[in-house]
Structures are given as structure tokens and as C-alpha cells.
């Protein structure tokens, strides 16, 4: 009976983070207009969206904001009419500073949660061998400088430091007389580095019309989980050498690059009233996320490698803003997001769907020094697909509402 025993139990079944796990809630104002912010310049959020756009800032500007995302996901499988995921609400935050320190030199700082995903199911649900609970949360810090070459063109760049926390729980299909299945819990954290650079141009600006253009590139980042902890519980005695109570693992999560270009056109009806239309094109380099591998320190634990094979995917964002009396800002827009996840790779923890998402928002400027903004989006889409590697098929219905609120102080 030597060598009789090769374990299939972990192989292929570890799939993590389907769904674009990028959080597109980095600005209340952008959210009101479909998430577009590359092609215009208005306030501190440029530090994140397009560092080149910072150069229109005056004085010192601080924005503090937060979001509330209320997701809801249900599944239908060939066995079960309806399964509700218990995805918790997410509350990403944002802080931006941008200020002018010399005539042509600007500095900024961005702190936000750019990537995140969290999904939970009942422990005994039918996809438990794929995922029970999963959570990723990143914090990115980006000190930034921008330089105004002349009135019509400026450039900027920032250095990104990202910290990430990751936790993942799934059932392992080994049972004993006392237990129906075992459980794995992987958790880890890591740091990654990247950069963000952009160029911004005011093509035309007169009494009636302003046209602006921007482009930016945010690099990909390799988030290494160097000293992750893997814990195995409810494992039959005879398999505890393969699945010990605790071992460490290493893994790597590739956060994607984003190329963005955007334009804006403003028509000024008079000094205090104007209307602006914006359009952004994002191209997110999800193909970096081709495999996800965990290597366990314990030799007998079967290493896990999952093919994700995501595709680079474009997103079109557009919006309109009406400024009333230089005080009330009313916004509407939407984005069309093409899923990076091919059929056959859709996973229950965050089923990604190609969809059109409507957004809206408004802002109020109170005097010169204080303003606040509120943005809203609403996702509602369905998709039916296999997760071929896991032998799992489901119809997904995913809804989410997101609210972003931010306050800006300027002096």
C-alpha cells in the first residue's frame, strides 16, 4: 500500500476573488458621474485618479470620505432553488490632500482602500469546498508630486505603498466517523509597491467653453503574502500530517494595472452656472491575475494552484454635472463594465458580471472653504456560468448599492 495515497482534496478547488475586486468608490463626485475623474480636474481626488490634474488646486485641500456598500448575492444551482450569500457591508474610506507649495509645484497624499472583497456563506452550504468565507482589504498610501509645465499642461506622479490583509476559509472534503469535513483557514498580510503617473491638459478655456484631457497609468502591484498562516481543523487523525493544525504558506496576489484616459467639456452659461459632460475609458490589466498559488511550508500539504485566466477589461464611464449658482452640483452618469472573468471561471465568492451601472450624486459648496458630496451607484445583474475547475455551476443574481460621502476643506 505504499504510495497508494495521493491527495486530491485541495487541488484545483481553491478559487479566490472572482469578480473585479477593485473598489470603484474613491470619490463621491466621481461616483455621481459613472466613476469618471481622469479627464477633469476639480479637487483633491485627482491625486488618486490622475496626479497630473492636481495642478489646478489652490491652497491646501483636504478631503475625508467614506462609503457604505450594501451587496446582495443569490445563487441558484441545479440542486437548490435559492441560496443567499451573506456578504457583509463594506465601508471603505478615503483621505486626500493636495496643495500648492510653489508656483508650479504641487504635493498630495492619497490614502484609500483600492481593493477589497468580502463574501460569506453558511458554513455548510453546498459550495463549501470552494469557499465559506473570504475577505481581502487593502490600504494604499500614495505620496504624490505634480508639476505645471505651463497653463495648459501638467504632469504628476506618486509612489504607492499598499498593505493587504487576506483571509480565506473553506471546507476540505475529508471526513471521519466524527466529522463530515475538515476546514482550512488561510490568513496573511503583505505589502506591495507601485506608482501612479498622469498627464493633464486644458485644451481650451474661454468664457463659454472649457475642454480638458487627461491620461494616467497606475501600475500593477505584487502583493506577497510572505508569512501566511494556514490552520486546519476537524481533520481525521490519519491525515493530520498532510493537514496539520497549523503551518505557514506563501502566496502572491497580483493587483492589476489601470490605464485611463478621459475628457471633459464644460459649457458655461454664465459666471455661476455651467454644465459639464465627462467620459473616461479605463483599461484594467486583470490578465496579471492568471493564477493564484499557495505554497505550504509543511511538505505533505498539497500546494494549491488555481488558474484564473482573467482578461484585461475595458470600462466606459460617463457623466454629466450641472452646477447651479456655484453652490449646488447635481450629477448623473453610469458606467459599462466588461467582466474580466470568462465563462467557466465564475466563482461564487464574487461573481463578476458585465453590466451597466447607473450612478447619481450631488454636492453642495458652502462658501469658499467647505463642501460636501454624495454619490450613489446601483448594480443589478445576473449571470449563469460554470466554475469549471471546481465543477460548480450556478446562476447568480448580484445587486449592490453603494453610497459615498465626502467632505472637503480648503484653505
Amino acid at each position: 500500500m505504499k504510495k497508494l495515497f495521493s491527495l486530491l482534496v485541495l487541488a484545483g478547488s481553491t478559487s479566490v476573488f472572482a469578480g473585479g475586486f477593485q473598489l470603484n468608490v474613491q470619490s463621491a463626485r466621481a461616483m455621481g458621474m459613472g466613476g469618471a475623474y481622469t479627464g477633469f480636474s476639480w479637487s483633491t481626488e485627482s491625486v488618486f485618479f490622475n496626479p497630473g490634474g492636481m495642478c489646478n488646486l489652490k491652497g491646501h485641500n483636504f478631503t475625508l470620505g467614506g462609503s457604505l456598500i450594501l451587496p446582495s448575492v443569490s445563487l441558484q444551482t441545479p440542486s437548490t432553488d435559492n441560496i443567499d450569500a451573506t456578504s457583509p457591508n463594506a465601508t471603505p474610506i478615503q483621505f486626500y490632500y493636495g496643495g500648492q507649495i510653489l508656483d508650479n509645484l504641487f504635493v498630495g497624499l492619497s490614502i484609500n482602500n483600492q481593493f477589497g472583497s468580502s463574501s460569506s456563506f453558511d458554513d455548510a452550504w453546498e459550495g463549501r469546498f470552494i469557499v465559506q468565507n473570504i475577505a481581502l482589504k487593502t490600504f494604499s498610501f500614495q505620496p504624490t508630486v505634480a508639476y505645471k509645465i505651463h497653463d495648459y499642461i501638467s504632469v504628476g506622479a506618486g509612489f504607492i505603498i499598499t498593505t493587504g490583509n487576506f483571509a480565506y476559509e473553506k471546507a476540505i472534503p475529508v471526513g471521519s466517523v466524527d466529522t463530515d469535513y475538515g476546514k482550512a483557514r488561510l490568513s496573511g498580510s503583505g505589502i506591495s509597491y507601485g506608482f501612479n503617473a498622469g498627464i493633464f491638459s486644458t485644451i481650451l478655456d474661454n468664457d463659454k467653453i472649457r475642454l480638458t484631457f487627461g491620461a494616467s497609468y497606475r501600475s500593477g502591484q505584487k502583493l506577497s503574502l510572505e508569512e501566511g498562516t494556514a490552520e486546519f481543523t476537524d481533520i481525521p487523525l490519519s491525515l493530520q500530517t498532510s493537514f496539520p493544525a497549523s503551518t505557514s504558506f506563501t502566496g502572491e496576489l497580483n493587483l492589476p494595472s489601470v490605464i485611463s484616459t478621459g475628457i471633459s467639456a464644460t459649457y458655461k452659461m454664465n459666471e455661476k452656472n455651467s454644465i459639464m459632460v465627462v467620459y473616461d475609458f479605463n483599461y484594467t490589466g486583470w490578465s496579471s491575475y492568471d493564477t493564484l498559488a499557495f505554497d505550504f511550508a509543511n511538505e505533505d500539504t498539497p500546494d494549491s494552484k488555481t488558474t484564473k485566466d482573467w482578461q484585461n477589461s475595458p470600462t466606459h464611464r460617463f457623466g454629466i454635472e450641472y452646477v447651479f449658482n456655484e453652490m449646488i452640483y447635481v450629477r448623473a452618469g453610469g458606467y459599462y463594465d466588461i467582466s474580466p472573468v470568462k465563462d467557466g471561471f465564475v466563482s461564487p465568492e464574487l461573481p463578476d458580471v458585465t453590466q451597466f451601472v447607473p450612478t447619481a450624486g450631488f454636492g453642495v459648496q458652502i462658501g469658499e472653504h467647505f463642501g460636501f458630496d454624495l454619490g450613489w451607484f446601483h448594480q443589478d445583474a445576473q449571470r449563469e456560468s460554470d466554475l469549471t475547475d471546481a465543477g460548480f455551476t450556478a446562476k447568480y443574481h448580484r445587486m449592490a448599492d453603494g453610497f459615498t460621502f465626502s467632505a472637503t476643506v480648503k484653505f
Partner: protein
Amino acid sequence: MKKTGLVIAAAALVVAGCKKTQFAEVERTSGDADFTHYIAVGNSLTQGYQDGGVYEEGQENSYPSIIARQMKLVNPDMDDFEQPMVNNTGSGYMHLEYINNEITVISPGDTTTQPTEEDASWSTWGESMKSIKYNNLGISGITLMQCVAMDDNEKIINNIILGGASIDIPFPPISYDIPGNPFARFMDFGDNPHFLLGGGTPIQYVDHIRQSEATFFTCWLGDNDVLGFATSGGIPTEIDGTLLGLGTVQYGNLSDPIMFRQKYDSVLTAFSSIGAEGVCATIPDVTVIPYFNTFTVAGIKQDYGYADVWIEEGDLNGGVTQVRVATENDLILLTAKDDIEGGSGASETDPLTNDRVLDAGEVNACQTRTIEFNNAIQSSAAMFNYPVVDMHGFLEKIKPGVMMEGIGIAPEYISGGAFSLDGVHLNPRGYAIAANEFIKVINDYYGSNIPLALIGSYRGVIFP
């Protein structure tokens, strides 16, 4: 205050709206099928045999009982699916223990540790059950040959194989006792037509089908027409029929394909004559199962240090033709474990015996016959307009290993997740997988929408 109110109002709206992702209850339908009285015919797989025995938990998770459980979701009024249940450990079965840091298979009768022995009631099991009409008519070990007799001789022989025969007269002193199939004892086979054995009227297996009142059936017969031969290493079983004027009766050899087709037609005629609808299934290539693949020639050389593996090559009737060095085309049976660990097969003078090896010639004969039988099943079913579950193709598909519900499944011993410890039969998870293959074909052909069984809810191997 105003804006806070707005946010709360909007959030409340959204929270209320979140419920909308829920999918509506699916309206379940039997389609064109009538599942009111479901009858399953077949062999050990149908009876729920696993881990080398029939026991209570195994029967509760037979594939027909799983199908019935799912059918009930589309037709809550269907008749209860009655099975001829054994008590507790039934005939006894194999289990795993962890001894000296090794996973070890413990069979009934093993003296090293506490085996799972047969239940006290097993010796008389079935005797009081013969008048009950069960829904699960699966009998471990039954071949299609034994289901229908083509002539009087066969009636006598089938009756002996299934029901046993016994003569005990003091003068002239004759004592003749052949036990029947112990797993068939729940079924009444009538009297043996041979004048020495009572000269009465037999009840054939196919007669039970005719009397089954089936509105729907699954038929997975025919495996043992190859499997019995294969698992014995190509050695048929013999009954001494000299006293009955029948000479030596051989069974458990490869069945004749023409007879196979005729008898399959008879079984389907029986169902068709009572207006039952149903589904048939092909038989897998038996050589794919762990029983034949756990020990390989290369594996024995590597793990036990053999220079060569010596085997007896057999003919198709149990005779030995030669002793030779085994190649990768010869399959070493799982039952050869003790022989290999005792050093057998390492030399020409101590080869692995014929009953431990399905040699290349026998493998070839099994595979050829399997294809012929499956062709017979396909054309017979087509003639009666019954759909066929391609179990042969399905096993080929999962041969390299597949994922289902995130669970790795492969035809590998212990680690493969779906086969029981005897290496031939499935475990509850494996039977759930088989049940789903039936359900898919039923839904497809009859327009029903029986939900698939959750294979993760059925246990795999129980690890120590």
C-alpha cells in the same frame, strides 16, 4: 439633519430592495414521466453494496434510494421507495484504521484489530421478507444471464444460483446442498423445476419485474456479466450439477453477447408490458476501477523492489497457460495485496497466481465484451424507446480526475473519494454521483426537472 435623513431613507430603501436577488422557487415537474411507483433493477450497485458488503447505511445511500429521494421533490405523492433492509452491519464490511502511522484496510474476519463483522441477524436475513414487494430489486452478484432463462436447463440453474438447492434424503443417502446467493434471500424464487429439487414452478427475476407495478424504472443490469469474471482474475465459478444430470455448471464467465441482447430485450419487454417508462444504463469498462489499478507492475517494482513481476497467465476458463513476466497491460488485482507484501510475484517459481491477475488477454476479452454488451443495451433500449445513461462514457470522463462541487473525484483507491474500500463499488458520494447521471438523462428525456443530489451531502471515504 436633512441630508442624514436622506441617506438613511435611501439606505433603508436599498436594504429592503436587497431581498430581490432571491431566486423564485422553481416549479417542479415530472414532465412526461410518472414516478408514482419507481422500481430499480440491477446488481450490487443497485442494492447499495459497498466496502465489501451490504449494510444499513450503505443501502440507505444506494443510488436508487438517492434518485427516489430527489424524485420525491417533483412528485411528493410517489410511493415510498422500499428496500430490503439489512440490520446494522448486515453482511459485515471493510473499514479503515490508522495503525503504525499507516491507513490500513480492515476486513471482516481480520484478527489484527476489531473488524466490522456481520450482524447477528444476517444468517437468517431475508427469510421473512420474501412476500414483500420491494421497490429496489437490486441483488448483489446477479448477472443478466440469471434474470431470464431461455430454456428449462437455465431455469434450473438460475434457480439454484439465486435461491440455492438442497436435497437431504436418508435412503438412498443423498445429501446435496448448494447455498443460493445470500444477497437474494429477500426474493421468492418459487420452486426449482428439477424433479429432484421439488419439480415446482420457479419465479424468475423477470417475473418479479412483470409483477412490480412499476410506473417508472431504472435498469442497470449487465455489469456482472463481465465484472464477475474480471474480479476473479478470469476464473469462472463452478457448481457440481452431476447429481442433477447437468454435469459441471460454470457461471461467472463472460456472458454470451447474443444471449445478452435477447435477455436484455426480455427485461425491457417486461417493463414495457406493464406500461412503465424508465431509463437504462451502460456498463463501465471494469478495468477503470481502483480494484484493477491500485497495484501496477511499475508501482510494485518501485515500491517493493521487484526486478520483474511474475504472473500466471490464464485462459478464459480458469486454466493456467504459462508463467511469465508481467507487462503494463496485465492488471494486478487489489486482492493481491497480501501476496505482494509476502513476496509473491518476485520470482518465476513464486508468481502471482491466476486469481490475482487479470492478464492482458483477459483484459482484452473483458473490454471487447463490454463494448458488445453496451451496443446491445443501446439498441435494445432504442427499440423500446427508453433512454440510456452512458455510464461507460462517464467513467472514462472521470478517469483522469474531475472536480465536482469543489471536491476532487477520481477512480483511485481511497484518495479518489467516490469508490468504497472494496475498490469495485461506490461509496455514498459515488452513488450520489451515479444517481445524478441517471437524473440528468431522465430530465433530458422526459422533460422533468428533478433537482440533482448534492454530492457533498453524501459522505466519501471515512478516514480514521
